[in-house]
């Protein structure tokens, strides 16, 4: 787990990203928003995300959260259970 992070996509974001999850090399702590900006360059479709919540290690966070090596980051579209 160290020196990399895992990114998970759900529902239509999985289709947009073309993958369910990806592990990326990751050495140095950085704010989530910086990571998202990088991802949007690789996967432009993510830019169109609306109402997406972000979670790090299964807890909701905002863009300012600091990401550490080993973290699991999730892109969560609006829920539709029940």
């Amino acid at each position, binding site marked *: 787990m160290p020196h990399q992070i895992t990114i*998970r996509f*759900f*529902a*239509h974001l999985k*289709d947009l990203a073309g993958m369910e999850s990806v592990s990326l090399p990751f050495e140095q702590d950085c704010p989530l928003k910086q990571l998202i900006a990088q991802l949007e360059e690789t996967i432009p479709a993510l830019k169109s995300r609306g*109402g997406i919540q972000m*979670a790090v290690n*299964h807890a909701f966070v905002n863009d300012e959260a600091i990401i550490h090596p080993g973290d699991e980051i*999730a892109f*969560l*579209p*609006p*829920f*539709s*259970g*029940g």
Partner: protein
Amino acid sequence: MIQSADFSVEEEIAKMKAISSRMGGIVTFLGTARDFSKGHDVVKLTFEHYSKMAEQAMLKIRESALEQFSIIDVMMIHRIGEIGIGENIVLIVVGAEHRQDAFTACAWCIDELKKTVPIWKREETPDGQIWVEERP
């Protein structure tokens, strides 16, 4: 609890009744798969979830309901995977001494589940598949 298998409402109610002989009212919400949604036909549903986070969110709803309502217990099951029309999706069973508390808590739990539990529904329609994102 999140599971792909179907559940028996009768069994879940029996478990609830067994918890306390003080229970006077049991309110149940059962959500089932409709064949029609927002103007289009639906042939089948598929539910996906973020496993660990969804389980945690369900536990939190239960704890919060026990804290804020005068109820004896609450039990929740949500199915994932493929679900055919008319099949069970979600069950919430609330037992209380008095019925008003059971009604209020049960309605609150299903609202809260829809808002806070990372589960997503994909509808299979005659024109293709749609990931549903609105909160109904």
